[in-house]
């Protein structure tokens, strides 16, 4: 289309609005976290991050996020295949359920998990505790809460890709003698690879940052069940320069991991292939 003056004005106005919006909502506040973190130079930050509570909190966060992502990848791909490739009664209901974790507050998720799995009152938790497995106020609860809130991210990335590739390649593979597993590993998985990786990274980022649900199910005891986000909150509310530097440093690291993961994936992902 020809570039008229009116078009140019509209385009620049739109750009300014978007950039301004992102600046005030995202870029400026996040940049301020970085600025606050390094306001006294690098040394206090390194000292803050060396505290055993901080190291433990990050280890717990990373392991919880790892397991949550593993669970979500397996079930996410499974549920996506179920939603796209099969028709069954209740499919639409399942499809809507998948979005539930996005719409329900994480705090509610946490409370719900406590009701079911609490060692003292939960109706499943009591028998589990007798069998020697503590869920609430322990890592399994943290993993469950994290997996719950990040469940839709893999599915919402994989479903459209599965719909787009259709079933012909899979049928061709079957007619060429491939078993169900061979077809999945050699044809389906490579085809959904990038959608899946993107979904995994999004869920990793979401898992690292989960707060509300984890706060309720973990109890937030330092060196036992305190994750990085819980540590940030606790230190932020305490007095003293060391505590506030610790809070900002931990927050900065959390943001940094998420941003780096997204940048890596975005730069690796090939430009969208043309049809066929």
């Amino acid at each position, binding site marked *: 289309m020809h570039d008229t003056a009116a078009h140019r004005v509209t385009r620049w106005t739109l750009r300014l609005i978007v950039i301004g919006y992102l600046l005030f909502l995202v870029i400026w506040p996040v940049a301020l976290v970085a600025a606050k973190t390094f306001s006294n130079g690098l040394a206090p930050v390194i000292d803050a991050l060396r505290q055993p509570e901080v190291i433990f909190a990050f280890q717990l966060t990373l392991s919880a996020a790892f397991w949550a992502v593993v669970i979500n990848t397996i079930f996410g791909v499974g549920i996506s295949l179920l939603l796209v490739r099969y028709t069954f009664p209740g499919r639409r209901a399942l499809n809507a359920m998948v979005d539930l974790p996005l719409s329900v507050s994480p705090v509610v998720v946490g409370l719900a998990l406590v009701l079911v799995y609490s060692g003292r009152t939960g109706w499943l938790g009591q028998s589990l505790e007798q069998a020697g497995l503590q869920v609430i106020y322990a890592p399994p609860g943290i993993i469950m809460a994290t997996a719950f809130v990040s469940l839709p991210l893999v599915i919402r990335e994989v479903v459209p890709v599965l719909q787009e590739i259709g079933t*012909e*390649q899979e*049928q*061709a*593979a*079957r*007619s*060429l*003698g*491939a*078993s169900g597993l*061979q077809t999945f590993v*050699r*044809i389906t998985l*490579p*085809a959904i*690879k990038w959608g899946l990786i993107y979904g995994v990274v999004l869920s990793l980022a979401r898992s690292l940052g989960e707060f509300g649900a984890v706060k309720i199910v973990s109890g937030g005891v330092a060196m036992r069940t305190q994750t990085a986000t819980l540590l940030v909150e606790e230190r932020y509310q305490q007095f003293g320069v060391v505590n506030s530097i610790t809070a900002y440093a931990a927050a900065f690291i959390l943001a940094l991991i998420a941003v780096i993961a997204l940048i890596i994936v975005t730069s690796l992902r090939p430009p969208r*292939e*043309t049809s*066929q």
Partner: protein
Amino acid sequence: MSIKIAGVGKRFGNFIALEDIDLDIATGELTALLGPSGGGKSTLLRIIAGLEVADSGSVEIEGVNATGLPAQKRNVGFVFQHYAAFRHLTVAGNVGFGLKVRKRPRKEIAARVKELLELVHLSQFADRLPAQLSGGQRQRMALARALAIEPSVLLLDEPFGALDANVRKELRAWLRRLHDEVHVTTVFVTHDQEEALDVADQIVVINQGRIEQVGPPDELYDHPTSEFVMSFLGPVTTLNGHLVRPHDLEIETHPFENACPGRIERFNRVGFEVRLDVRLTEDEMAPPVLVTLTRAEATAKALDPGVPVWIRPVAGASQVRISAHLPTSAVSLDLSPADSVPQPTFT
């Protein structure tokens, strides 16, 4: 018999896709399943391949009852209309897929892939991705991929349907030559009667879930047993209550034995061919009769719009009597001279 289909039926909800199909396909033949879209021919092909399950009946491939066998165990090569290329694999990877999942030694796979790529003239494209090939090349790749597993039957679902006209013609001539070289029992689905007549040894005409007629192309063209087959296999026009091919009509500018009088209403030349609309004097209400002849003939007979003419089917013309439900002209024209033709007719 390479493929034996007995009593096969298939419904999708209330829609009857196939009804009680019996069909034998001989070993080494190139068979076309021909019919209009939605007639059930693709469904039948997919049932043979095991990609669709029949509601009733049985399928036997090379003497083995395949009715309950999954697609992966039927050893059938299937080629899809839209190629179904594995997008993330190279051309060589695509062709070798069937051997790879059979865990054949790497050397054997490489040798077989090389041989097949030569057969389909894609050797120089071995390391390309399907996205870098043209439609015709992708379809040849899909064929090589299907042939790699040495299938007992090769099934092609509208293989040239997504290609443009020139490539389509080229590729179907190539398919015919390939079949003469490889001799694998081949069944292909098409809605293009020219394609079927050009390539196939046997044509199976399928319409509304039933088989209308089975036979070699010439037999079907010359001796159709129904109005449907007659009109689906080539151009038809109506004369004296019969369907007749427009090029099977004799036309003169003077009366002759058994000929119907009329007048040329439209004169239309398309390349080497002249198409005439002739309005019959005895039945002004009936649609005009279409007559086609070569340009040389039309010139020699001084045919022009408005000229009075007489027409009749040539001796031995294939004709099918139109059943009663069709236009009023069928009734009035029953009294005309050409009624002496036996009905339903193949002369």
